[in-house]
């Protein structure tokens, strides 16, 4: 044996072997169905597009660029709808919202380097909120990778912590199947963003490999059905509860389990509170609805979760904005935690009963196992009393400017039940969630976990493309809107019928609110009195613009904006001093929420 006969196969050998295997496989397949058609030879980029089509993608959001050009070239011959965005961050948010509203992954595209870094915020956002999304990024050719080439970034390295999983396509043969897998993986189990980095030589190279049926990787097998033992333990715990609360999280939306949740809560008479991503899964005008819990949740939801004896948490991850200080979160409750992701169980709040499975399946399993309803009439009465004691209310004194809550209610009244609301981040987001009465899942589209200003308008674009027949209203803050308002150009070009309602307080208001409460009112860099006139900005982009500062103009402007066929922007000049309450200071006890600044 000569020294060079190393036991390790060289890469060339391995490649040659797998190519042989591929050929013989496809030859077999061809002889089976009689049609001896070899796989078409195409570019890696064409395989990528074919894989997207095969996976069921319909709409893509992206921005062109050098390293992604082969993919765009392949897109030229495709039926897929591509929406060219003004900024990659917006492409990611639009894809994210598309995923939330439609339930199938939204797809975004960006070139290497700055294109990929611009996507990062949107990836992190989708990752925190477990939204299904696929990002395809161009990359410099493989022989340049690692050399700090023009527009090179380590995209997979940079996005590993903010994606569910990411891939680097090494060869043209791999490109198609990898994109198919990324698409499946994004939606399977606990959804999340996936990314495929596509070097330019890979997308340009020829391949005869068939992308195959898209499938998730073998190592990924989420359990949908829970084991009987944990289901029985959950049922027994709920049956003996005297003060039960259901805490529904985003997993109920993702699992399409809103119907199962409603049926379960009503059958067993259990009040329902939601996390922010779950808003809409339970109708907020229902008797048992306690609405949102947490920092700016309702007083009654916070009282109910603080005093319950059994907390049936479904698909929620106990974010700190929801729990407040964990020491005082549902401190006397036995926690029954249902989640499809085992790693969420006991991550922040210890589960007394852990149930791993899909929200809808588990609700049906537990429902079938329940022998009786909990004896909770006195508790339901208590919850009703809390609703009467802490109503969500506001005043509209004549001598003070327009209140934001009034604007939100006016928008809610003027729209259908299935109208979709998207938001930026700040006070306006909280007023929108508090004063809009949500009754349908997938109608509340916001940035929860990451809290990304600038999310509202691009999300409205994604939402409208996912649900063209539903009304879409973006509730924006002046600061948030300024971050991505360039996307108005896209809304105008695509003639998207969306309404942007800017709650303009000439402040980055949420920051000002905290400065008032915790920094002695020192308004360091929170005044936005240099804001442009948003109605005129809208017009400059070719959209319809309105400016409103009085109560009696609100209804007319809303009606005109809704009637306008295309994007419109209403600049609501609201009370600059309005603040969001109730409020639990961060790390505080939910049951001690403040109703006004003096109580913080």
């Amino acid at each position, binding site marked *: 044996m000569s020294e060079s006969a190393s036991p390790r196969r060289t890469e060339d050998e391995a490649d040659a072997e797998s190519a042989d295997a591929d050929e013989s496989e496809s030859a077999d397949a061809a002889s089976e169905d009689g049609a001896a058609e070899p796989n078409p030879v195409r570019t890696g980029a064409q395989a990528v597009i074919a894989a997207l089509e095969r996976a069921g993608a319909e709409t893509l959001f992206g921005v062109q660029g050098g390293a992604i050009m082969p993919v765009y070239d392949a897109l030229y011959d495709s039926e897929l709808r591509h929406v060219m965005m003004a900024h990659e961050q917006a492409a990611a948010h639009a894809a994210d919202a598309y995923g939330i509203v439609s339930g199938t992954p939204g797809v975004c595209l960006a070139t290497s380097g700055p294109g990929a870094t611009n996507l990062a915020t949107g990836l992190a956002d989708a990752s925190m909120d477990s939204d299904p999304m696929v990002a395809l990024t161009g990359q410099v050719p493989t022989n340049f990778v690692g050399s700090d080439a023009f527009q090179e970034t380590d995209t997979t390295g940079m996005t590993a*912590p903010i994606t569910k999983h990411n891939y680097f396509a090494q060869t043209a043969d791999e490109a198609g199947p990898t994109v198919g897998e990324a698409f499946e993986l994004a939606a399977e189990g606990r959804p999340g963003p996936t990314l495929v980095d596509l070097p330019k030589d890979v997308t340009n190279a020829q391949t005869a490999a068939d992308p195959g049926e898209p499938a998730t990787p073998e190592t990924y097998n989420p359990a949908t059905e829970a084991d009987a033992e944990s289901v029985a333990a959950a049922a027994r715990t709920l049956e003996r509860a005297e003060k039960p609360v259901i805490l529904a999280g985003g997993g109920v939306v993702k699992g399409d389990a809103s119907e199962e949740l409603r049926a379960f809560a009503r059958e067993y008479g259990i009040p329902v509170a939601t996390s922010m991503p779950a808003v809409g899964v339970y109708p907020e005008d229902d008797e048992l609805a306690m609405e949102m819990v947490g920092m700016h949740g309702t007083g009654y939801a916070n009282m109910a979760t603080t005093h319950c004896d059994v907390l049936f948490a479904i698909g929620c991850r106990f974010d700190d904005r929801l729990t407040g200080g964990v020491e005082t*979160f549902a401190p006397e409750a036995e926690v029954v935690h249902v989640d499809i*992701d085992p790693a969420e169980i006991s991550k922040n709040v210890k589960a007394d009963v852990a149930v791993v499975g899909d929200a809808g399946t588990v609700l049906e399993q537990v429902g079938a196992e329940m022998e009786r309803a909990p004896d909770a009439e006195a508790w339901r009465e208590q919850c009703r009393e809390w609703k009467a*004691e*802490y109503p969500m209310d506001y005043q509209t004194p004549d001598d003070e400017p327009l209140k934001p809550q009034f604007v939100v209610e006016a928008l809610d009244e003027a729209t259908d039940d299935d109208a979709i609301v998207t938001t930026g981040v700040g006070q306006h987001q909280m007023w929108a969630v508090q004063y809009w009465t949500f009754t349908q899942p997938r109608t509340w589209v916001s940035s929860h976990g990451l809290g990304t200003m600038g999310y509202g308008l691009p999300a409205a674009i994604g939402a409208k493309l996912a649900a063209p027949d539903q009304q879409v209203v973006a509730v924006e803050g002046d600061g948030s809107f300024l971050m991505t308002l360039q996307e108005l150009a896209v809304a105008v070009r695509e003639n998207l019928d969306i309404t942007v309602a800017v709650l303009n307080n000439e402040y980055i208001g949420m920051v000002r609110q905290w400065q008032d409460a915790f920094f002695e009112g020192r308004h360091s860099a929170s005044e936005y009195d240099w804001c442009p006139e948003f109605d005129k900005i809208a017009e400059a982009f070719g959209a319809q613009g309105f400016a409103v500062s009085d109560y009696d103009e609100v209804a007319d402007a809303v009606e005109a904006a809704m009637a306008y066929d295309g994007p419109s922007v209403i600049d609501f000049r609201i009370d600059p001093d309005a603040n969001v309450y109730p409020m639990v200071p961060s790390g505080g*006890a939910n*049951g001690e929420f403040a109703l006004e600044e003096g109580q913080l």
Partner: protein
Amino acid sequence: MTGGLQGPAPEERPQPTGRRNAQGERIDPEAHAEQDTRKAVVSALVEHEPGVLAKVSGLFSRRQFNIESLTVGSTTVEGHARITLVVEETDAGIDQIKKQVEKLVPVIAVGELDDDAVRAELVLLKVRGEEPDKVHAITQMYEGQTLDAGPRTITVQITGDHQKIDDAVDAFRQFGIIEIARTGQTALSRGDTPTTPGESPAASAESTVNQTDLQIQKETSDDD
């Protein structure tokens, strides 16, 4: 003040007396202290693909898990690797580590090893060479090997469990340690118990045999 919300003020509301600790466990506020940490050996079987180690180690730094050592190497199954982690955390933390690692897509299975697991670590020690006889004696005492001996330095290798390595390092200090390289612990479960759940040691043993057979065949035909 632009309030509008009504209801009893915070101090006028009933408050529960219960409490949770930092791990989110319900506790008796009078009696309970926080959880203690312990050391655990976690073994992860992973797909041997580019980036997997970065994904695992990135997870540790991102989630601020206290990691003591990490070793990685191939297994008998082609395309698989084993990552062995020694961590010091609370029970809840160890549970989270296992679940978070398991969640990574290229990870096949994760297990925590029992206390009786077989563990070993390797250390290379470079010491001053003035007293070769003494160095040799200590090396023998720790069943080590001398890898390099020159007029100025002697390099030895010791393997064993963590405690033995610590003791050996201490014993070599008298000569003046110039450099040290420790691998960190690696470990396997004892007997027939699989090191990670679902892993089937027998099957991989078979596949090694087959691979060796194949290899031999290939080599023979190459010779032809």
